């Protein structure tokens, strides 16, 4: 009672003090106020680094210049600006004319395509097993199987780099020997290293895929399944004609997110062999990092990062738009 009457009174006062047209405008956009706090917080931490990176990419920044005291204030990025100077598009020209950049971009896309395909296949496969009627105790197994998700990536990746030791006693080599092959120099061969990245990435990401796919699978209509059975469809036809269409969009959504994660993968190549052997497997973010830190070229590093962001951004725009992810049930 008291609460609502207080509410009424404040509303009256509000109506008395705020002019009507303004009030209407405010009312119309009131829901925006619910969104604003999150939006502002996110923008602060997202766009400032973005702007700074863009700025750096047009300068000749390197550790010896960028860390000197520059102008303060807004134009000086609150003291972030050092003694670096503008070089226009020079960094971009240098980056785009550098074959290692294109190699890095190529291998990154290859990594994205392969890893997403594997992650989807693997995730959906596990999810199918983990929801099968034939399997007892699947709930329990489902909660165990997400453990990789609960371990810190830096740790797991270190462990995996140990697994892929090219020594004979490395776990991967033992498995390979057990299967009757000869031991491999995993991280010292370009494609072997690439494959080991893929396996690791898959292992890291499958819990997410499984969680999403399981919840999608649980929403598959039993009635449709029955209809297909009565129509004479066998297991694979049912999978293809009923299951796949109904989990397609959730899985696509997960794939897009996980594709973006693959695109920005940094730790695996970094911990395994620094994108080696011989920089052959330098994924794009690692490439930018190497440029920035090993060659002390922050400007060029920033230009690479920005190019990467442009590519991933373009990818996300297309994916989000094509996949109509932003829409809710009430979307157009």
């Amino acid at each position, binding site marked *: 009672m008291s609460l609502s009457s207080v509410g009424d009174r404040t509303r009256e006062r509000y109506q008395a003090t705020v002019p009507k047209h303004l009030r209407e405008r405010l009312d119309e956009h009131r829901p925006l106020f619910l969104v604003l706090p999150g939006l502002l917080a996110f923008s602060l931490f997202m766009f400032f680094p973005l702007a700074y990176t863009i700025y750096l990419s047009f300068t000749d920044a390197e550790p*010896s210049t960028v*860390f000197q005291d520059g102008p303060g204030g807004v134009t000086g990025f609150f003291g972030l600006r050092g003694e670096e100077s503008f070089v226009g598009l020079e960094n971009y020209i240098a980056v785009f004319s550098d074959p290692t950049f294109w190699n890095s971009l190529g291998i990154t896309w290859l990594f994205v395509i392969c890893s997403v395909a594997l992650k989807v296949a693997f995730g959906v496969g596990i999810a199918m097993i983990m929801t099968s009627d034939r399997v007892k105790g699947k709930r329990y197994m489902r909660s165990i199987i997400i453990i990789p998700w609960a371990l810190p990536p830096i740790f797991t990746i270190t462990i995996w780099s140990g697994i892929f030791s*090219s020594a004979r*006693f490395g776990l991967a*080599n033992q498995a390979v020997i057990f299967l009757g092959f000869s031991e491999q120099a995993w991280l*010292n061969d370009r494609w072997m290293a690439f494959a080991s990245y893929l396996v690791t990435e898959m292992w890291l990401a499958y819990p997410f895929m499984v969680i999403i796919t399981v919840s999608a699978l649980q929403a598959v209509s039993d009635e449709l399944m029955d209809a297909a059975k009565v129509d004479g469809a066998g297991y694979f036809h049912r999978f293809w004609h009923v299951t796949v269409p109904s989990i397609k969009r959730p899985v696509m959504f997960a794939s897009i997110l996980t594709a973006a994660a693959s695109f920005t993968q940094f730790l695996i190549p970094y911990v395994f062999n620094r994108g080696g052997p011989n920089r052959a497997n330098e994924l794009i973010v690692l490439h930018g990092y190497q440029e920035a830190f090993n060659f002390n070229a922050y400007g060029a590093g920033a230009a690479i990062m920005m190019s990467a962001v442009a590519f991933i951004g373009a990818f996300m725009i297309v994916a989000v738009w094509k996949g109509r992810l932003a829409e809710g049930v009430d979307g157009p």
Partner: protein
Amino acid sequence: ISTEEPESGDDDGGNGGAEDYDEHEDWETVEPEDISGEATLWHSLSGGEQDDFEANLESFNGQFDADIGPNHISDLEEQTMAAIPAGDGPELFMWAHDWIGEYHQNGFLSDQSADVSFDLEEYFGENAESGMFDGELHGLPHAAETVGLIYNKEYVDEPPETFEELLDIAAEHHDPEDGTYGLGWPMDAYHVSAFPHGFGGHYYDDEAGELGLTNSETVEGFEYVLDEVWEYMPGDPDGEAQEAVFLEGNAPFLFSGPWQLGQLDEDEFEWGVAPWPEVEGHTPSPFTGVQLIYFASAMDEDDERADAARAFAEWYTTNTAVIAQMADDHGFIPVHNAFAEDGEEEDELTDDLQGFAAAVDQGQPMPVDPDFQAVWEPLEDEWWEALNGNKSVADAMADAESRIEDAWD
């Protein structure tokens, strides 16, 4: 379930502090006068080292009216890179001397040559140089480190005199199917450096600022490792794998540094440490590093804090009791002249440390030129390419040089 009274706090007694050691009567510890500041020190010492180091630091704080706060930082390079320019860095940090050039160039360091209160040459001999760059004093040395030969006494009683001998023993014990190997030797550019250097080559000439990877001597050194030694090692060039075979008692030899001693388990086998054996008449010459207490640029901000910080660095690097303790317990090879100059005192060092100290004598200091930082990675990449048989050593070194030169541009 047991119960205890609330008050009883735990007091984990450490295993003996510097009190157990006497200070050297000839070498007086440099002690500060009326300091009163606080200062921060960053380090990334490992577990046991950290405990003892911090205990010593506390005793300094207790003795004098200073408050030096130690912080264990997990990724010191990244942290200093971010914090120092932002003005949030410490006064002191501890690391090997090879950062000095680059950090000097970035303006991360403070020159304390005018303020230091004792004669460095006198205390540290030529090691004093390692804390200098461009004539400025950026740090004080407290320990040296390098790679030597650790051998398992269950396989060999005495360390081999020559590498040929060593390889014979290695060949005898090398049987991967059975889980035993000839030797362990991390194949990164640092650990392997003894050979290219020993054969007369060099990675980088600090004076001239020139690369020496394609020198025939350098190449020869690498080729010897590849052709003669690699076959007796586990197939993974990475350090962890190489060390593991030795640590588990499955290989007679390991080339590694004093930091490895903490990993060795006395219950498993006895070991010894020796300098590098001769190889075809050459003496291998590993890179040596000198651990510094760096003076960071924050010392230029506040004199009081700077005084406290500097006082601690002076006290710590000149306190022979502390140095002896760290040497005994953690394999920190002293650079203090008290332990090097008069032969009599040398006995104070354990056998293990004597072995490493001899290896230090064989070695040469890492270059400090900022440009040198760009050498490590391409060199290692290409060297591993050669190890894997993808390239000849000569080609690999040529490629490494061109990559490094690219980076310099």
